[in-house]
């Protein structure tokens, strides 16, 4: 492990911002630290950087405990959520700052800055001030500034939060490529599940100061280990009792049932569907057009579920009776989450 946190605790007054946090990161990986706002992500990042001190626990980088190493000696690049660009310095001076502190020669600084400016695609804008740049451009400058002194570890706090949706998409890919190209170990914080899934090699999910789950995006998504993680992804419909949906096994002490839209298949009465006879009847209560398809709300067994249909499928209307088939559900008991499959999927299909 290149970066390792061992049993880190941190209080702000009586508030516990980090609760026994432990995780390890391999060299060269791009890690997404995901969790809702206030879950303690920034605090973790700031402790790794040395901007905050943990109450106890060890932070290890490259085999050395660095708790007592001053922030400036840790060799970490940090991109602040607000970018924290030096507002009274040009793009050039911003990127050059860390190099000047290291007392690099003027020609070295010039070359390195030129290289970075090219990398972030801002050639020709070296003499602009941050206030003369767009949000996306500022973000790139902050990125270049953090990279200039060649850090071994790059930390990014909500790097895309302040950027509008369209540019955000572009920047995500750009950042992923950049980091892959440079091979620098990176941790980025986000509260956006899509962002974490798209960009990260591995996701660490935080909730209330604790780590709930660590894993590859697909694993975390498809096999959530905790109730929180199960309910955090997708646009889940959450309800209590699933006993009315007969084709699922019972779970001891079940508390909540979580159904993601992609688990729900809605078909018109006239449509053919493989598991038609084990589907339940529902009524469409809402039809909404989204960019990628049609989002339906259907009332089944007294529960409203969200489901999706493509534009290419025959349209359904509000009040229409439809068949609803649920492939799988998550059931939570205590802090644990269980994935249940519809038993019909395992039974031989009888086509009538």
């Amino acid at each position, binding site marked *: 492990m290149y970066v390792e946190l061992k049993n880190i605790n941190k209080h702000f007054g009586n508030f516990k911002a980090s609760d026994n946090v432990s995780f390890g990161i391999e060299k060269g990986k791009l890690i997404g630290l995901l969790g809702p706002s206030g879950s303690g992500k920034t605090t973790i990042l700031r402790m790794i950087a040395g901007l905050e001190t943990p109450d106890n626990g060890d932070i290890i980088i490259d085999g050395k405990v660095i708790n007592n190493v001053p922030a400036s000696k840790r060799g970490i690049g940090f991109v*602040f959520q607000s970018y924290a660009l*030096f507002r009274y310095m040009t793009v050039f001076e911003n990127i050059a*700052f860390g190099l000047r502190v290291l007392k690099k020669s003027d020609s070295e600084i010039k070359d390195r800055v030129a290289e970075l400016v090219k990398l972030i695609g801002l050639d020709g804008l070296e003499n602009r001030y941050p206030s003369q740049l767009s949000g996306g451009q500022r973000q790139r400058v902050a990125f270049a500034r953090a990279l200039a002194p060649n850090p071994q570890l790059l930390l990014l706090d909500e790097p895309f939060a302040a950027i509008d949706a369209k540019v955000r998409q572009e920047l995500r890919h750009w950042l992923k490529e950049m980091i892959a190209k440079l091979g620098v170990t990176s941790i980025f914080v986000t509260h956006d599940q899509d962002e974490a899934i798209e960009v990260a090699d591995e996701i660490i999910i935080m909730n209330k100061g604790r780590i709930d789950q660590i894993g590859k995006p697909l694993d975390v998504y498809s096999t959530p280990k905790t109730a929180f993680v199960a309910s955090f992804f997708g646009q889940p419909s959450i309800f209590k009792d699933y006993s009315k949906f007969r084709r699922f096994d019972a779970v001891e002490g079940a508390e909540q049932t979580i159904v993601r839209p992609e688990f729900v298949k809605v078909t018109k009465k006239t449509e053919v569907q493989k598991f038609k006879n084990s589907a339940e009847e529902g009524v469409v209560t809402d039809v909404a057009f989204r960019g990628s398809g049609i989002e339906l709300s259907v009332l089944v067994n007294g529960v409203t579920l969200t489901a999706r249909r493509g534009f290419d499928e025959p349209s359904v209307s509000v009040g229409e009776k439809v068949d609803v088939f649920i492939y799988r559900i998550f059931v939570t008991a205590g802090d644990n989450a269980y994935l249940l499959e519809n038993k019909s999927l395992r039974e031989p299909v009888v086509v009538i």
Partner: protein
Amino acid sequence: MYKETKSSKAVKWFLIGVSVLFVVLMLLLPLITVITEAFKQGFAVYEKAVTDNYTVKAFWLTLEATALAVVINTVFGLSAAWSLTKFHFRGKKILTTLIDLPVTVSPIIAGLIFLLTFGRQSPIFPLLQDWDVKIVFAVPGIVLATIFVTFPFISRELIPVLEARGNDEEEAAALMGAKGFTIFRKITFPHIKWAFLYGVVLCAARAMGEFGAVSVISGHLRGKTNTLPLHVEILFNEFQYVPAFAVASILVLLAIFILIARSLIEYNGKKKNKVEP
């Protein structure tokens, strides 16, 4: 704004009229009085009063006290602003309150406390005498009293600006290994430049005009511990009205200079803020 009605127009001009009348009577007229009284007996008398030896000495003492007050309060203001906005520590609220305390103290009391601390009845007075240090009825006392009455003038301009900005930029610079003074000079100071200048101007204005506190502690030794405002008082009380107003006109000139400087600083500060995101 929606349409002005006839009556609202009447109200508008009535209020403007009242305001202008007030400003002319209360603020402009005293200013004009100083000038007209100063030149009542012609330019020669004015010139004589202004170039009088005691006046010149008082002028330099005023300048000295003002400069020292500005310097000390600058050191204090920058330190306090840095300490109070960059760090969290216990007792921060109390410290903030204590810094603001001096402006609520009557100038007379401000003079009195230095009289009590360093004067004849003070426990440390014998000590001061042994060392041959004169504070009360001497220049150091005047300077101390002047610093006291202008104490928070610079820090209270800086603190809100720094507080509103947060510490991100400083943290970013410190993370890259920049030293404290570099951070201050390159990152922080450009942000507070105008607020700082503004504070300096306010501090200087109050310092050069301070009367009550200095009056208590100076002992009114003409040519030695007399500042310009004290000199004005002495001349006026001796019924030397023209010289009194002549000396006062110097202070008026300085006041006008300060008002203009203040406006320019405010204007520039505002313009600068617009450029920022």
